[in-house]
């Protein structure tokens, strides 16, 4: 048993060791400039990861903007408003979203979401919100917006299940107390429930962010895979995970491989920090009871 427990530790150490040792070449060649340069030219062996970092951050941010209100809304509805009889089945259906493999999300997005975006949603957004500068350009469908939307659908079950859990640990007396003061149900939810659960909800959101940052297949299939930094969400982009998926097995030359591993290392470190932060926040609310449904 102890050996199995040690194996868990050993695997993590092995991951860190392999990533660090294999990315050494690129680290020595480019240093910190690796993360500031946006030149990605395998032919002349010049590597900068900025477009990928930008794409990862922006697509995850778009996902959060869409997913957070929806997930919190669903969690509030399930715990505070829904008739008791439907609670179980509603949360089951929402969590069913988490069971769909990433590649199937990608397939669906390619053949259903992207055409919908390019014929209906993007022309509409361009006309009404084009002045903001983030909804401009040709409505290809494929691009940052499509990636953000599919990521949002994928992280909704994570955020909403954690939110539901922290809402459930808010003591019942808290609700009754606020109601007794004459609050309406919404005021009770806002003052008595959501305010108390803030830290935990934030934890759920960050956990969702962690998932979005590392998500690979679905994003790779719809983001357009072009290492450019564009202001418009309609434009194609590239993420750290998708450049690995696309180029790793075809990379020739040690520096090229090493640069890709360094992107993997950066992705690894970012997700670790994000996840640790999220766990701490959720733990602070549920007091160490293990968070379920985070897998």
């Amino acid at each position: 048993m102890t050996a199995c427990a040690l194996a868990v530790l050993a695997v993590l150490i092995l991951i860190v060791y392999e990533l660090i040792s294999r990315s050494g070449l690129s680290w020595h060649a480019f240093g910190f400039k690796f993360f500031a340069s946006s030149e990605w030219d395998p032919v002349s062996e010049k590597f900068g990861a900025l477009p990928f970092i930008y794409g990862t951050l922006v697509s995850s941010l778009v996902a959060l903007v869409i997913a957070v209100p929806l997930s919190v809304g669903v969690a509030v509805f399930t715990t505070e408003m829904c008739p008791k009889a439907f609670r179980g089945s509603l949360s089951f259906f929402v969590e069913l979203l988490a069971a769909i493999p990433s590649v199937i999300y990608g397939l669906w997005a390619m053949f259903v979401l992207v055409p919908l975006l390019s014929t209906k949603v993007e022309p509409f957004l361009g006309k009404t919100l084009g002045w903001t500068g983030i909804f401009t350009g040709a409505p290809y469908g494929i691009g940052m917006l499509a990636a953000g939307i599919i990521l949002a659908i994928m992280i909704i079950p994570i955020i909403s299940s954690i939110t539901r859990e922290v809402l459930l640990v808010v003591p019942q007396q808290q609700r009754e107390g606020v109601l007794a003061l004459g609050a309406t149900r919404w005021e009770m939810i806002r003052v008595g429930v959501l305010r108390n659960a803030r830290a935990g909800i934030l934890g759920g959101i960050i956990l969702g962010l962690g998932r979005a940052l590392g998500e690979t297949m679905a994003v790779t299939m719809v983001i357009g895979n072009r290492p450019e930094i564009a202001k418009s969400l309609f434009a194609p982009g590239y993420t750290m995970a998708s450049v690995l998926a696309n180029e790793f097995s075809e990379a020739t030359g040690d520096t090229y491989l090493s640069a890709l591993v360094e992107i993997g290392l950066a992705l690894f470190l970012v997700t670790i920090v994000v996840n640790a932060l999220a766990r701490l926040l959720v733990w602070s609310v549920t007091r160490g009871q293990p968070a379920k449904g985070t897998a």
Partner: protein
Amino acid sequence: MHASAQTVSPISLRRRVTDHAMTGVAILTVLLVLAPLVAIFGYLMYRGIGSINWAFLTQTPKPVGEAGGGMANAIVGSIFILGIASLIGVPFGVGAGIYLAEFGRNRFGSAIRFTADVLNGVPSIVIGIVGWSILVRGHGFSALAGGVALSIMMVPTISRTTEEMLLLVPTAMREAAYGLGIPRWRTTLSITLRTATSGVITGIMLAFARIAGETAPLLFTAFGNTFWNWKATQPTAALPLQIYVYANSPYDDWHRQAWAGSFVLIVLIVTAVAAVRYAVRRGSFGAA
């Protein structure tokens, strides 16, 4: 002071409207979340069932651009790789879970628990790179490398659920066993683990369902193959990989097969989970 019934002022219109409006917003969010679920499953049924035929289930892929053929080798390959992953991941996961529940109430236990959580958050593509770095470099792509990469993803889920389920077993049962003079290891295996079996298996199935659809860790480990392969040391086809390749191709017939493959993948995941659940429920294991 005398008790004069103070008239309660009615709740203002603005507050009542806000209350109803927010209920409406909450219902709207539920509909917006369920919409993609229905759309995805609906499309999967609609495109998937219509695309499955005998050739799809029994033949290997045809050369590029040629219509027909199937994913038989990918379906079997997936089961092969998942089998390898489970053979490695399940014992380690359950073992680590037992350690955490029975012996892990200390600093080292907390460290392992935290490590498992961290491991759970590692992006699957990074696991793929590490799998490549350890097992593929210098040896070539193989089903074994794919299985090992996936097993790394199974362990955290299994160990955490195993721990939770074992902790649900009442201490009185352990004490009863100690009272009969049964050694600790025997108590853990025959009493505690036995009692929590159905819960532990549910955890294993959760982990299985999670890795069954994983594509990213297989890209540089199992790699894919258009032919049959029965050797663990050779590149092997897997259903998610094949779906990915076909979805990105420019051919309509391959798109059709990608949908069919997705449908088979979902059915595979659902039946595996349902079958084990049924078997566990039929068995005489209680608790959890």
